[in-house]
């Protein structure tokens, strides 16, 4: 898939991070192209979530550079990384549990709604117009993620599978260029996983964004991803198409042992 003449949306160069004396990730190089679904896999403790935390600037990398659409992300904090166009979900779901499902999505639109507190207090025309637009956009997102029927429910009361979907919907509400999914299928039954895969493809096709996902469900990864990066002990072990990865002896060794 990775044609040479295409511009990558995200480029990671020699990325590394140390926690005290422990090197969690080292010398990582990655390129993610637009409208591509990428997989980031590796055994437990390989540093996958750490990579996500560096890409979203929750952690500041010790070494290396991250470029989003050619722009260096070194000086950004997590809030600015979100503004720049990176959205994510979490391994352990982090929703706004006491807010309604639709408000969770609207909260994701925070930076696209521009009215001021003055507009809000005096309920100006601008407030009404922008809130109406946000409501419409949120309803559309809920529709895509099959959550319309739960719109007014408190997010904490949603079943587990729906909570995962809501988290993706909220991430999409920020209108990202790159979506990071941290184990989206964790805890899902086979049928839910099947639905999730269809949904991830739909999101890519509908919003034309790049997706990078961490997943332990190899079937899902091999079926949905067009390009895969394998991490082991914080280092790049292999990368390529699902077929290449499946037949790579290094990868098999890392997963199964000698």
């Amino acid at each position, binding site marked *: 898939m990775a044609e040479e003449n295409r511009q990558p949306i995200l480029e990671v160069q020699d990325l590394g991070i140390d926690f005290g004396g422990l090197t969690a990730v080292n010398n990582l190089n990655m390129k993610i192209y637009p409208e591509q679904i990428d997989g980031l896999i590796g055994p437990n403790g390989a540093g996958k979530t750490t990579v996500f935390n560096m890409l979203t600037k929750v952690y500041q990398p010790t070494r290396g550079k991250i470029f989003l659409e050619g722009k260096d992300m070194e000086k950004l904090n997590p809030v600015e990384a979100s503004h720049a166009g990176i959205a994510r979900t979490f391994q352990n779901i982090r929703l706004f549990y006491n807010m309604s499902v639709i408000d969770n999505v609207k909260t994701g639109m925070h930076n696209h*709604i521009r009215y001021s507190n003055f507009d809000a207090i005096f309920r100006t025309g601008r407030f009404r117009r922008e809130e109406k637009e946000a409501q419409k956009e949120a309803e559309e997102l809920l529709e895509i993620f099959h959550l319309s029927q739960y719109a007014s429910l408190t997010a904490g009361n949603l079943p587990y599978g729906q909570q995962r979907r809501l988290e993706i919907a909220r991430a999409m509400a920020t209108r990202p260029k790159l979506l990071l999914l941290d184990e989206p299928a964790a805890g899902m039954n086979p049928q839910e996983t099947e639905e999730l895969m269809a949904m991830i493809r739909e999101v890519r096709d509908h919003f034309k964004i790049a997706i990078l996902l961490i997943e332990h469900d190899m079937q899902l990864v091999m079926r949905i991803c067009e390009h895969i990066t394998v991490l082991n002990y914080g280092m790049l072990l292999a990368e390529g198409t699902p077929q290449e990865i499946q037949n790579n002896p290094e990868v098999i060794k890392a997963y199964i042992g000698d």
Partner: protein
Amino acid sequence: MKRKLNVNRNSAVSYSIVIALYIALSIMSASGLLGRKYSSLLVPVCCYIVAAIGLNMNVGISGELNLGQAGFMSLGAFTAVIVAGALNFHGITAPALVLLICIICGTLVAGFLGWLMSIPVLKLEGDYLAIVTLAFGQIIVNIINNVYLGIDENGLHFSFVNNTLQMQPDGSVLISGPMGATGVKTASNFTAGFLLVLISLIVVYHIMYSRNGRAIMACRDNRIAASTVGINAVAEKTLAFVVSAALGGAAGALYGMNYSSFAATKFDFNLSILILVYVVLGGLGNMTGTIIATTLLVVLPEMLRFLSIYRMLIYAVVLIVIMIVTNNQAIRMKLKALRKGKAGNGSGKGASVNG
């Protein structure tokens, strides 16, 4: 759409309760039914409601414990006293105008100090924040307790030591150290209090159900997730803190303009805790509940006066009972079912008659 309806219903319930209470109490007060004891509580109740609504913005919506609301009230109250003194000295005495200017000034001063405070304070979280707000409340009381301030034709005179104001004979002393504010020309009345409650409610509801309101609640529920959708938690918490402080100031200004004299010690730690109790018993984030709880808990000690020395004992028992009832899942479910049953009967009367 459903959610939107809920929102409107929530605020509509609050507005109608406030308006209904105002009309009922005004009539009762005018006809003498209320008696002097309770009539004199009307304005203080409005003050406490406004302060409590503000505090609920910080504690309930933003989820940060604030133990210094009385400090912001005292700022508002003493700002009002100074402003009113200055206005009176320059011949502006129309009570409504003086009160309006005083409340605006009290709100601005408390809001501004709240903003100044939020810069260092909101770097802290949880218990530490509570401790700083507690200290702030104490500091304000102790500073004002030592202030002597008067006005004459040369302007304001200020001193930390008694009898050094060196005023012209036509001047008047506004704040007299531990004695507090003296010679205030009262300007507050129940209608003003009612309007202030209504305005506070509108401001708080309109912020709650807006872009920033959602962001404030998002930071309360999950700060990390909020930052990854591009919300600056410090800015949002500052907003909640400043609104809370400003409403505390407005409440204080109304309070200050209701008494001809009052001491700074009126706004001590106990008052902060009392307002926090109103908020917690009314329900975190629940403005209607806050209004009801405040009204009941301000009036209750007066009603229990016949118990003489057992008064505060019974007051405490009532507080505990309310807490148990409002936090008991089983009782809440029953209340909910009752309410639903009522609504069902209203719309489907035919069915129940047939049955």
